[in-house]
């Protein structure tokens, strides 16, 4: 492949090489699509870049994500948002979802998946939290890696985004982020490193600036770190339209493809080379990366097709069948993912699971009957249908049940319904108006300045009217369940003390409503655990001004910050209840000197009355001063009643290393490592051991 690419490169003229580095979709059509002024939606068809068919170089065909493939209308499978998939802690399932997405992309004629978002949410108010895998570097890295593997197994290129330091939405075009080296490497880049080393074929540079230089032009990030230090052999593409703002700076900064149309590259880049401002070797490197990666994945695709043919997914013409888009097996993955991602925060009584004896069920909250798959920016997927919570509930209740749905404000009527009902379900939370990629609010008028989505500034709680409703109706019905719908963390108000049962439903994708209903009625366990901490108050989290033009990221964030400050969480990271109980015993840990891994084994037994699932979690505190317990291993376990299993978890050296500030490299610190094993990040519930490295 390497040689083949070199051969092709030799035969290209400067203009042709620069041609590979150019996006071909007009600015007007993308923005028109986003604002709803054209007949097609954003990315309804793949967006092309580069390509030189004569010389045997296919064009890049970009398809966005991450909830599924954005292309098409009424067809693609819409999975739960990555935040919910992270709550499942299920890397095996994520890999399968990646493969499913890869297949659908191929069916649309695409060859690159722009949906592996692995930006770490420094603050849960970030509008696009839903697109990433939780607040912890290790969890993000593992889930991202699984997605990369899954997608790329089909021969579709996985593109990581947004590189880097992109966790503020409102000001993403302007903000300049700075932080110290340790924070940079351990907190914000480590998961990118992991995914790059897992073989990701493309990386998208971010809009914001880092240390004063736009990420799209940032030689430190793109050349030094990504290519040299990490040995990335794929290509880089810019975030669309405003990711590149200067021909020479971008080219010398390491940018490879200007997306999604070409303004600064193209003939201006040719001119810059001719004027000696950009060396031709820079162009050669960019072109080579593109050619090599396209050929490499062409090859993988051909191999993958052999397997797909056996599964009857290839047509007689040798193309992947269009019927894989939104096919049953993919939708079943989406359903399973949503079931595994529901987090049960509280369950007194126990109210859940609801028995079918509950014949009169009152449901409140307009989100119960709203198809709500997440934000409506570039991540929006257009599935054939979306099952709402009400529709899901109707499928699960007994035949003689009556479901009464009321979204009104008349409190006395709501109270009356609650008192008469056997069970009351209140759905509260957000939709795309409240959080997400910032979009024009009125999709039919291209107005500037009016938008929906964006960051949640100063709103980490439910809407006031939801809070009031919950306050006033809590306690009226002993079988009350609150379902929280959001893509990120919500701090529940005082009502949570009076409500017996609370379920986090996130944005569950096309089968979300069905999954939630199945969990409510006990058809399956609520499989999720919190991928972020819920603190007692917002002040326990780092301060972040989402409209600032310059921001310094601190080292401590999320649950790590709470541990560092010694603050108690309302609900800890990794927490979630099951419908059964588990016992942990026989925990052992040893350091494998030869392979430089920590091996943990533990026994788990299902001590409850029904089959259930849990997630065994391993937290490690390095010998470094000031270190706190951070998650470094997890595994999903399913056990029948009374069943007992031995679980093994290995922690790689990569995940134990810390950044050596003087030396400027990652290393494994020798000394005493503390290991906490349990079912959440709550240290009081752990088995704690020591391990000498």
């Amino acid at each position, binding site marked *: 492949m390497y040689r083949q690419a070199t051969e092709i490169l030799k035969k290209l003229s400067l203009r042709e090489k620069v041609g590979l580095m150019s996006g071909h979709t007009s600015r007007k059509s993308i923005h028109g699509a986003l604002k709803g002024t054209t007949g097609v939606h954003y990315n309804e068809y793949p967006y092309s870049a580069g390509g030189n068919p004569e010389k045997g170089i296919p064009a890049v065909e970009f398809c966005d994500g991450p909830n599924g493939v954005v292309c098409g209308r009424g067809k693609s499978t819409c999975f739960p948002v990555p935040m919910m998939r992270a709550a499942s802690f299920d890397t095996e399932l994520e890999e399968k979802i990646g493969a499913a997405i890869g297949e659908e992309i191929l069916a649309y004629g695409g060859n690159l998946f722009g949906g592996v978002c692995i930006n770490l949410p420094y603050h849960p108010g970030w509008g696009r939290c839903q697109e990433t895998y939780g607040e912890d570097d290790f969890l993000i890295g593992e889930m991202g890696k699984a997605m990369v593997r899954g997608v790329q197994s089909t021969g579709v290129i996985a593109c990581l985004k947004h590189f880097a330091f992109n966790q503020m939405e409102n000001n993403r075009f302007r903000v300049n982020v700075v932080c110290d080296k340790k924070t940079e490497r351990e907190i914000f880049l480590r998961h990118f490193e992991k995914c790059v080393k897992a073989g990701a074929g493309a990386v998208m540079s971010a809009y914001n600036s880092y240390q004063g230089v736009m990420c799209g032009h940032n030689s430190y990030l793109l050349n030094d770190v990504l290519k040299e230090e990490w040995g990335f052999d794929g290509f880089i593409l810019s975030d669309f339209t405003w990711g590149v703002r200067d021909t020479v700076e971008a080219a010398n900064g390491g940018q490879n493809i200007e997306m999604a149309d070409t303004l600064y590259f193209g003939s201006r880049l040719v001119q810059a080379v001719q004027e000696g401002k950009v060396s031709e070797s820079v162009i050669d490197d960019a072109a080579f990366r593109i050619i090599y990666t396209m050929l490499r994945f062409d090859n993988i695709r051909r191999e993958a097709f052999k397997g797909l043919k056996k599964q009857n997914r290839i047509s007689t013409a040798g193309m992947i069948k269009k019927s894989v888009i939104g096919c049953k097996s993919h939708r079943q993955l989406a359903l399973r993912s949503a079931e595994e991602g529901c987090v049960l925060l509280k369950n007194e009584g126990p109210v859940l699971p609801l028995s079918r004896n509950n014949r009169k069920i009152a449901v409140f909250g307009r989100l119960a009957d709203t198809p709500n798959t997440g934000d409506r920016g570039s991540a929006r997927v257009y599935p054939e249908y979306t099952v709402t919570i*009400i529709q899901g509930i109707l*499928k699960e209740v007994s035949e*003689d049940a009556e479901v009464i749905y009321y*979204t009104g404000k*008349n409190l006395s*009527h709501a109270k009356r319904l609650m008192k008469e009902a056997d069970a009351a379900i209140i759905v509260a939370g957000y939709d795309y108006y409240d959080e997400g990629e910032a979009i024009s609010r009125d999709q039919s008028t291209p107005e500037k300045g009016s938008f929906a989505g964006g960051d949640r500034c100063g709103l980490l709680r439910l809407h006031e009217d939801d809070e009031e409703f919950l306050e006033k109706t809590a306690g009226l019905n002993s079988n009350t369940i609150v379902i929280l719908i959001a893509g990120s963390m919500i701090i529940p108000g005082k009502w949570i003390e009076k409500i017996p049962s609370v379920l986090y439903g996130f944005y569950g994708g096309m089968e979300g409503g069905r999954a939630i209903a199945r969990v409510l009625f006990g058809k399956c366990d609520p499989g999720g655990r919190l991928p972020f901490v819920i603190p007692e108050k917002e002040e326990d989290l780092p301060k972040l001004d989402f409209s600032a033009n310059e921001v310094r990221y601190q080292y401590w964030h999320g649950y790590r910050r709470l541990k560092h400050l010694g603050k108690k969480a309302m609900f800890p990271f990794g927490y979630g209840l099951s419908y059964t109980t588990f016992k942990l015993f026989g925990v052992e840990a040893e350091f494998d000197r030869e392979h430089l891994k920590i091996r943990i084994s533990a026994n788990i037994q299902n001590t409850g009355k029904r089959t259930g699932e849990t997630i065994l979690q391993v937290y490690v505190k390095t010998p470094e001063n000031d270190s706190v317990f951070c998650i470094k291993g997890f595994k999903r376990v399913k056990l029948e009643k009374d069943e007992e299993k031995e679980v093994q978890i290995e922690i790689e050296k990569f995940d134990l290393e810390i950044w050596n500030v003087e030396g400027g490299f990652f290393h494994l610190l020798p000394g005493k490592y503390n290991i906490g094993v349990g079912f959440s990040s709550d240290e009081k519930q752990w088995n704690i051991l020591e391990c000498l490295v």
Partner: protein
Amino acid sequence: MSTYSFETIEYKKIPSVNAFVTCIESSVYHWHYQYEIFMVLKGCVRIKIDTEMYELKKGDLMVINTRTIHEVKGEAGNLCGLIQIDPELFKLDDSDKRTIRFFLNTAAEGEKTCAEEIRIHAVWILLCVLENRKDAFYRLRSEVYSLIADLMERADYDVVLKSGKVITVSEEMISILDYFRDHLLEERPVESAGRAFGISEKTLLRYFKASLGISPKDFVNKLRVEKAKQLLRGTDKEISFIMDSCGFQSEKTFYRLFQGLTGQTPGNYRKKVQGEGRVNQEIQDYLDFEPFEAAALLRDILLKAGKEI
């Protein structure tokens, strides 16, 4: 999406809307499929729904939901506008299985949202029907749909969904009421109803007390008296014939019950009612009225609301 595709919708049957103005004397517990917009133009009317009694005066407006059992009693000289709308008009498509319950009753606490808009639509509909206006065909349909749109957009309502073929107590009650209407002539209709529905008399009593606040026996008596009133008013048949046709077991019982519920003897009632030359109407005890008076009252409402006529 900015492209718009407009389809003309063909109805296989025209869903019915019934609009009329009338004076109401009384109607024993009944129900109908249609949603009923009930508006008092003059006088006072008492409506009992479940166990709640509402007093509606001039200007009051109420939505009586589909299959909701209710009883109406009007004081002398009242005038009411009624619009009965087929629930089919509220359905989005054939698979729409929702039953919507509106909470719009200006005589009840906290149920006044959007009453003004509904009132204006109702007035237009009634004027179209009363006055035989030119081009009323279009205005009538437009106002009916606007009324429905306003209800769905602005009124307070909940949605009842059933997962399968469900017989809830309220639905069973409806069937039982119908049964009584069809079996008035039986000697012991309450007993036979129990047998027909497979429930004990004790349970039957419980259902009735919970939904209507009266016993099944009392309900049957009310039905019988109501039928008697119709016959007294609309026919020349003898009292003994009427007594038999309504299922009363003896003259003594007939007189006792009739007097108890109307305050008059059957004979006096007939004299009063027939003496003033009223015409028999099939619908529950609706009495005659002056169309001009009604139209004037309706226009008045529009004027006060600042609308052009």
